[in-house]
């Protein structure tokens, strides 16, 4: 996932958080669901919205905007949950709205300038331009296994 060889075709799912556009490798996306009420977990970090019932399994849902450090907002019915799978773990990512699926080659992706990698730790894997708008490509592995702050 890290070093994409030149001109490999990639497909990205793009979505909005506040007024920013983000995207994820579509291969990690399992499904997209409408917003449902989550059951909150006690003493959880604020970006952990809780758990929902995904056809019989318990799916943890995190607010991606809060996870990325954007200010928390009210949720509306238009919000959606993107169900992603990283390694064996399924997680729901709450986003404002899904926009599009775009196909491009890895040549179109440019590494983020050092100073611009928001939140540090390489959460933003790459940047690309679409119709003059900047789209941030997220590194899922940096998002999903959240820091196990409570262990030790």
């Amino acid at each position, binding site marked *: 996932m890290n070093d994409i060889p030149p001109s490999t075709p990639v497909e990205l799912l793009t979505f909005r958080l506040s007024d920013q556009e983000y995207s994820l490798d579509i291969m990690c996306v399992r499904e997209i669901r409408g917003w449902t009420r989550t059951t*909150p*977990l006690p003493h959880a970090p604020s970006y952990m919205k809780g758990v929902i019932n995904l056809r019989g399994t318990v799916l943890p849902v995190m607010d991606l905007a809060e996870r990325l450090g954007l200010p928390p907002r009210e949720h509306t019915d238009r919000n959606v949950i993107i169900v992603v799978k990283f390694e064996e773990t399924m997680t729901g990512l709450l986003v404002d709205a899904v926009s599009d699926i775009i196909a491009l080659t890895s040549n179109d992706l440019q590494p983020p300038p050092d100073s611009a990698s928001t939140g540090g730790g390489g959460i933003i894997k790459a940047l690309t331009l679409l119709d003059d708008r900047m789209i941030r490509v997220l590194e899922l592995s940096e998002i999903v296994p959240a820091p196990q702050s409570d262990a030790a």
Partner: protein
Amino acid sequence: MSQPDPMAEIRASFFIECEELLEALQDGLQTMADNGDDLETINVVFRAVHSIKGGAGAFGLEGLVRFAHRYETVLDGVRSNTLVADGDAIKLFFRAADHLSDLVRESRDGGVLPEAEGNAILTELDALLGNKGVEEEDEAEIDFQPMGLALDLCLPDLPPLPSARAGQFTIHFVPHAELYETGNEPFMILRALTDLGPCEIICVTDKVPRLTECAPEAAYLEWTIVLTADVTEDEIASVFEFVEGLCDLTVESPQATQAVPASTALPDLPPLPDLVPSFAAKPEPAESAPVSAPPSPAAKAKTIQPPAAKAVVRVDLDRIERLVNLVGELVINQAMLSQSLESSGLSPHSDAMNGLEEFQRLTRDIQDSVMMIRAQPVKSLFQRMSRIVRECSAAVHKDVRLVTEGDTTEVDKTVIERLSDPLTHMIRNAVDHGLEATQDRIAAGKPEQGTVKLTAAHRSGRVIIEVSDDGGGINRHKVQQIATIKGLIAQDAVLSDMEIDNLLFLPGFSTASEVSDLSGRGVGMDVVRNAIQSLGGRITITSTPGSGTTFSISLPLTLAVLDGMVVHVAGETMVLPLNLVIETLTIDHDNLEQTRPGLNVVRVRGEFVSLFDLGVELGYRKAQDSYLDSVVLLIADEAGSRAALIVDQIQDQRQVVIKGLDESFYRAPGIAAATILGDGQIALILDPADIIAQAQSNTSALSPKLMEMTP
């Protein structure tokens, strides 16, 4: 053979059987060690090794056969009284049994057989016999017993002998003794033939002598098979491919064949009454092999008699898992149905409601039955532990005896499997750290031999497993010293004994002053505790200086369902395990007291119990001004500590299906698992003991770091 490899299936069932035989072997050896050697026990031990050898021979597992054979020779010595099984010999037998189970495992997984260790054991075994056994060694002598499978069980479905027509082959199949020696099994070949088309299989038993004249390694049986199929001779020959040169085979093609009159093909059966007694003594493979002609009624009555064991079905665990999951769905579904029926405003005496009640009862019965399928005695686990004790005590040069109790206690299979690692670690700990060195024991006036005790028991819907040793107990002074040096507690912290003991569960904590062979692997009691917690269990520790330490594990019986009390807290629906709830009460002026500001207690029949607001403890809301008229659940955990929890409302009691929370990225404190309610929403299942511990630690004198860690 073309079909989905029946050989692999038989092989798999052989290894399952091996597990049982190894268990019987261990049991027998234990009985010998405890009560001396009565003949019956020795026979059991001998037969177990012998049967493993037999099966292994059939599958060409040479390393296993070689070892088992020499082991068996020595056991035979005990059986025939030429050898006395004293304590040392039995210890050696145990080691040999351990090695045998290694060999079985490696053979099954296709691993490398540990030759060197085996040879060392074999040398010692031979030494027991005074080398008598070695000269008798002759690989060719190894007799194995292919598993006798009664073909007549499969055959009644076959169509009657069809009249002669094109496509009918008559096959004469005369196996040589070598065929059996190489581990081939006529049954397999005959079964492969039936795959080609309908067969009339006739076993020619003319050459079978009276049993007194029967040579065990000779081959007496022949078969005549009339196969009706549209195949070529080559296809038939390919069935016999593996036994080419090991049998006489003639295939008469359709043109040459005449209908074989059944009367001429059916030979007279050998006098059966003679057969029967020797069956009991030592079943000969050849005789139990396929006989398609119906045996005489007398013989049938004898041969069909099942062995004394209970009828048992071996089922793939995946199928049971599926069943359990389906039952889980059924329970959720039933909850949904009840909820919608209740909300539809039907009279409680309507047919629908009565039906629902019946349905609920059935669901519950089904669920209990399904859970029982997965329940297994902890015996196999305990046996594995006795091996750990043997190996571990040898490594640290301590004389240790393992005492087990309650090994028939049944627990869900998944629980048993996942207990193996933590238990192994605790047993090692007990032997290595718990028990003192022999000279220290003598100095303390204790018996030289240390005792490690492993017990299992059911207690209030959970299973309690205890590992205790009669060692020196926890050196609390040293423990606190280490914890201070490592910066886990403050320099001047004053800790209770219990708090000091619990320091052992801190990550990276080790009391071993030096890294021995067994400790210092970077695995501490914290890993054990995590493993137990992930099973929904808890571990506690009690220690008496000078007389030993006990670790006590409390686990749910199953990981699938739970009797729960459904409550509302701060707008959330939650479930409390019902077995922990003692009673419910409401708070009024008479029973509410404060020990100090903000610290409430409730008086229950003259006893004061700490009062906690569940909503506050879970971080869902701020403390209320007044708790008058609140609903309270009085709960007690397994250790007996009690607490009162304030909830907003009690909804009902019901069975819930436990759904694990993926803890890979966030472990919610106080939460054991989750479940799905009738409306599809998720409710969290609380772990009250954890909540109480968290709440209590807020008032503790411990450093913040320790607070997180204490259970």
